[in-house]
């Protein structure tokens, strides 16, 4: 069975700079997302958007221990993760708007199909669950290359049911690969509660045990806990200790995609999460209570982030659309390896 990790972490043990960096990452993600939704409503962005609001602790807490050359496979609610990993905001907005400045050079990308090799962002599969087996391959490559890179594979509770889960976990354990599987358990896969989609002992992370992989269940909205548990897993992976599995309990505030009224959930539960368990709100309160940061510190970060977001949007909007012929470019790479 997975270890249910509970820790009362004293923020004072950490640098103020570091603590504010985590804060900044989370508010950046939320501001990015809120602005994207605004752009959707303004008709400047089309397609289906899976908002990650409410799940900011995942990307912030995990990516804090990753290097640029570490790999991630973000999930379909994972702008949070790609932002934390360092994909420039104007490129992400550019992809949503189909602009040339996007990572896809105008092909467009919703939350899936942003890739940014410079920061180890390997892209995403529109069919859920390919992440497990792609991560297995990326992890294996590290083993062959004998570097000390790490690969983090993010996925939802619903996605954990895909058949490929078994194949990826098995490779990771068998070849002792430097992979951290991070399950964002936000309770629902679209309308289906995870207890209606999984036969479980207690938690999804309990499955790790059958592969000899250490499993952890944590409050995925406690960014410091995410940070600590992920850091241990990442360091273990980096130093040859093999894979880990972390299940972070969290919640999505919005519908499955923008436009989903989400009638299948009890609104009271949603509100409870928003009021009592919000990652950002609670983190602020905790730092203030611990005397680790003050309201002014947060306000300063908020203002900086807002400017950063608006600048990125402006840059994306200023970037041209591609020619129609864009689709005929690049299907095959020329040359030899």
């Amino acid at each position: 069975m997975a270890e249910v990790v509970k820790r009362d972490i004293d923020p004072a043990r950490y640098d103020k700079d570091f603590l504010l960096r985590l804060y900044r990452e989370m508010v950046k993600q939320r501001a990015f997302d809120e602005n994207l939704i605004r752009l959707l409503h303004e008709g400047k962005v089309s397609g289906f958007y899976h908002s990650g609001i409410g799940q900011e602790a995942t990307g912030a807490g995990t990516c804090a221990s990753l290097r640029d050359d570490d790999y991630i496979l973000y999930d379909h609610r994972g702008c949070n993760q790609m932002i934390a990993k360092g994909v420039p905001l104007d490129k992400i907005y550019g992809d949503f708007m189909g602009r040339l400045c996007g990572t896809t050079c105008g092909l467009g990308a919703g939350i899936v199909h942003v890739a940014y090799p410079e920061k180890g962002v390997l892209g995403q599969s529109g069919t859920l669950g390919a992440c497990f087996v792609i991560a297995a391959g990326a992890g294996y490559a590290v083993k062959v290359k004998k570097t000390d890179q790490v690969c983090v594979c993010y996925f939802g509770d619903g996605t954990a049911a895909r058949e490929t889960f078994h194949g990826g976990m098995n490779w990771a354990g068998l070849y002792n690969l430097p992979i951290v599987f991070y399950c964002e358990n936000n309770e629902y896969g679209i309308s289906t509660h995870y207890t209606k989609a999984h036969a479980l002992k207690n938690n999804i992370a309990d499955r790790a045990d059958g592969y000899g992989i250490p499993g952890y269940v944590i409050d995925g909205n406690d960014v410091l806990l995410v940070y600590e548990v992920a850091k241990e897993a990442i360091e273990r992976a980096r130093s040859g200790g093999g894979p880990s599995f972390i299940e972070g309990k969290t919640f999505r505030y919005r519908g499955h995609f923008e436009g989903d009224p989400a009638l299948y959930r009890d609104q009271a539960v949603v509100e409870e999460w928003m009021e009592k368990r919000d990652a950002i709100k609670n983190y602020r309160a905790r730092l203030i209570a611990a005397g680790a940061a003050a309201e002014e510190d947060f306000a300063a970060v908020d203002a900086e982030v807002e400017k950063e977001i608006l600048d990125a949007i402006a840059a994306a909007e200023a970037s041209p659309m591609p020619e129609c012929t864009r689709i005929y470019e690049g299907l095959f790479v020329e040359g030899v390896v």
Partner: protein
Amino acid sequence: MKTISYMQAINEALLEEMERDGSSVYFGEDVATMSGAFGATAGLLDRFGPDRVFDTPIAEATIAGAALGMALAGLTPITEFSFADFVGIAFDEIYNKLGKWNWMHGCCFKIPVTIRLPVGVMAGAGPEHSQSPQALFMHSQGLKVVVPSNAYDAKGLLKTAIRDPNPVLYFEHKVLYGMPGEVPEEEYTIPFGQAEVKREGSDVTIIATSLQVHTALAAAGMLAGEGIEAEVIDPRTLIPLDKETILASVRKTGRVVITHEEQKTGGTGAELAAILAEEAFFDLAAPIKRVGSADTPIPQSIFLEQEFKPNEEKLMSAVREVMQY
């Protein structure tokens, strides 16, 4: 007659057939509580209860393989993937298991499985949620392939699919969901293997499937203004294929344009063109033309996806080209 949407037609067919066949079950991702990604399964859970109508985990190979197991054990399974693109995940289960199981085990079973598969480019859903993968199944053995283009066909063919003792892949176009159409008040079914001439014409035969039937009809209307009378044929089912209706039309017109939304190369039009090159060669006065989508993945950008797809203009210029001979 009454006017209902393509989506309602699907919903009615499901309700009627599940009522009729007490062994039928309906399952898939978010189909019960939420009525499916597009709402086609509204009312099923209430009417038939949680054993017969249920939500599954996100695992399409399991869904398709379980459908086979249910059929072997005597049920009439009806299922769906939220997007037809996901056939790739269950390809072995669909292509090798559902399609071949009965034959390869000596023909001692019935496999009355129906899989609903929403296809098509719509609203920037991107390369993995917009495909029309029906062409892959032109090369299948033991599967039937249905591609309804309007509410009437959607209902009549889905009812036939569910009653069919063979596995049926039912490809429905997402853009058609909202399209209204006339449907009889009384019960009806449409036999498989009967193409429909959706418009008569003497100059050129346009073979069109799914949403492209509407593109073809619109193009034909405009071409009539240029003095070109196009006949529009909708095969409605690709397996079995009504070759006779197609060959008869080509005998009359001597010219053929084939259009479909899937990429041109290896699309369903390849087999149709090959059949004509084999069986209607001396009836043809002009080269066959195919108008499919670009041979690329599907771009996410809503602007580029228009470039990707066939449309009236591309179709009309193909028709004009074959009319030159």
